[in-house]
């Protein structure tokens, strides 16, 4: 058997909705873009933390196991299986978005009097006994043993990492090489281990073929995400998207630099069909520039509103499932403004660049941030008036600026961008 330690998942596409003030929403760059990506929802309320982890594990479920170091012994009521759609919804809701606007007829008074106005922008602002006997011999204590949904859960404490690894291996959890050293440092910090394994019978009874995310809640002063175990057997860097939900404000790391993704950039029209490539290449470039040692904030907003919204609002029922227990309103209502904040952090990590677990802090930041990229469709009418001439002159400069911006953000050759711009056939229509 083979465990997957720390996890991965890809998102589904949700129905789109549009809003005019921050542009008409056209596309988003969600976690599906990345090959090896995991999604984690981290809810922080005072000293309480809930971690929900979603796996995109595609292999045989009997070979799946999840090991999370936790600061305290976890009881059955602290564990909950969450529907996968909840994390997918958060992904869609917070993903970087492409919006579009349309230029007006330059002969209308606006363009006759004014140069082209930039698109409005928002300011840069989620057989027990045998088991136990063997465990004792290995210095492993089974603190708790219970089931949650399709998972069998064990909460273990251990005296020695070699005993723990031996015991896990004897009990059909094959630990990757190198895990022992990492487990050792957690044991020395008196941490426990939350181990989840799929109960195939129950999974079959419930008729499920996929693994649902699992949530663990505990009380701790530590506001952190254990990533070290996940890097032990990783082949190359992994992407992780963390949705931090809290009551106070933007969340950042204290031991890694946390930066904001480029946002509010005007891009050429053809990006409408190439948005996934555009965002992925831009993200790769930022990671390279930051020498893969920073965490990138892709979204930070009050859960009470969004503009433009890239999916339906996330209702309180779903947020409560993730651990936002302070929300007491109706299931289908969204949270009140000012009650709940979400920070979407995107980390590309490996053991070399992220040697220690990620530690977070809440800030009092009130400036919302969203990855927002803007297409401004030119006016395509014909006119030879002075206003039209001025418009077309400005337009040429604007298109060139969009090309250079895209080149500098993505590293794409400028000639290729210009050629795509020139051959682009606009079939869009402004929604009325």
């Amino acid at each position, binding site marked *: 058997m083979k465990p997957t330690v720390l996890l991965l998942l890809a998102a589904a596409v949700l129905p789109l909705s549009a809003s005019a003030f921050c542009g008409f929403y056209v596309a988003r760059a969600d976690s599906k873009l990345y090959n090896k990506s995991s999604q984690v929802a981290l809810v922080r309320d005072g000293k309480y933390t809930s971690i929900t982890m979603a796996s995109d594990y595609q292999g045989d479920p009997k070979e799946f196991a999840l090991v999370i170091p936790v600061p305290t012994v976890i009881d059955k009521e602290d564990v909950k299986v969450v529907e996968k759609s909840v994390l997918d919804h958060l992904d869609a809701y917070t993903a970087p978005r492409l919006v579009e606007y349309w230029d007006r007829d330059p002969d209308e008074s606006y363009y006759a009097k004014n140069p082209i106005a930039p698109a409005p922008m928002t300011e840069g602002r989620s057989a027990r006994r045998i088991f136990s006997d063997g465990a004792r011999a290995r210095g492993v204590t089974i603190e708790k043993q219970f089931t949650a949904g399709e998972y069998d859960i064990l909460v273990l404490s251990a005296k020695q990492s070699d005993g723990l690894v031996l015991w896990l291996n004897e009990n059909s959890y094959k630990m990757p090489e190198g895990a022992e050293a990492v487990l050792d440092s957690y044991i020395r910090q008196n941490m426990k281990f939350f181990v989840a394994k799929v109960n195939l019978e129950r999974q079959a009874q419930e008729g499920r073929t996929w693994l649902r995310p699992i949530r663990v809640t505990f009380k701790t002063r530590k506001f952190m995400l254990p990533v070290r175990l996940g890097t032990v057997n990783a082949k190359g860097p992994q992407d992780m998207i963390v949705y931090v939900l809290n009551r106070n404000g933007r969340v950042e790391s*204290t031991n890694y*630099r946390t930066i904001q993704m480029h946002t509010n950039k005007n891009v050429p029209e053809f990006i409408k069909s190439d948005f996934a490539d555009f965002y992925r290449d831009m993200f790769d470039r930022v990671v390279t520039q930051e020498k893969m040692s920073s965490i990138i904030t892709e979204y930070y907003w009050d859960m009470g509103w969004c503009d433009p919204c890239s999916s339906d609002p996330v209702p309180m029922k779903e947020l409560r499932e993730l651990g936002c227990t302070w929300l007491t309103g109706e299931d289908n209502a969204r949270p009140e403004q000012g009650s709940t904040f979400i920070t979407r952090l995107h980390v590309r990590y490996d053991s070399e660049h992220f040697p220690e677990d990620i530690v977070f802090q809440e800030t009092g930041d009130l400036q919302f941030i969203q990855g927002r990229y803007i297409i401004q469709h030119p006016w395509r009418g014909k006119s030879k008036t002075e206003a039209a001439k001025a418009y077309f002159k400005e337009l040429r400069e604007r298109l060139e600026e969009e090309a250079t911006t895209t080149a500098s953000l993505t590293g794409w050759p400028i000639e290729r961008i210009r050629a795509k711009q020139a051959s682009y056939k606009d079939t869009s229509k402004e929604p009325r």
Partner: protein
Amino acid sequence: MRIDPRHYQIAVLSTLLVYGMTVLHFEVTLAKAATILGTATACQWLFSKAARIRFEWRSALISGLSMCLLCRCSTWWLAVLAAAIAIGSKFALRWRGKHLFNPTNFALVLLMLVGDGRVWVSPGQWGNVAFFAFLMACLGGLVVMRAGRADVALTFLFSWVALLVGRSLWLHEPMTIPLHRLQNGALLLFTFFMISDPRTTPDSRAGRIVFAMLVALGGWWWQFKMFETNGPLWSLAVCSLLTPLLDFLLPAQRHSWSGPSTPPLQLNLAPS
């Protein structure tokens, strides 16, 4: 040529601020930086006039620049308040003619304590990309600093390194972990520009060494036992309360920028 250490500090802090604003994109606008520096200087002038002492712009500028680099807040007026508290603390919180707290440290800790999360410090903001250039600039500061006062910075640094490495050895962690923690701009800023402030540290060398070790130990406890952030900042504020006691137990001549209590290190930069 003799370089006044404060001029060197102002030069390094200004460079760091420009670097932070342009390359690292700190959340500090030009207007915000100007407001903080203006407030610090104005308060210094005002309080000096009230206290009938000479207006010392350099000290105000150093506090202001440190504030720009460290203080993050939700509204601009909190930064102004922080700058005013910093300068005010130098005049108001004195013990036998010596100010008790490093001004920037006091203002930050006070506002983090009572500000309900509206003021914070981002220790991760520096990253570790330009760490070594930063380190060199800080070490340069030691050269121009009066030789007698490098002891606080160095003792703190050695104690902090020992505690971090010791903890990782005890936990059987790879050395990449303490190394990553040490490659931190915020730590250097603290070590070379805050704890080493000669006006607030104990007068005697033995006192300063004890003081620096206590700050390191307290900061380590706060950060790695209580799992809170900015351990050294909190620890310095608390340990500053012990300075009068250390001065009483281990008396020595007081530091003054104008009259050297220990001879300044002379840098001979002229061609021979």
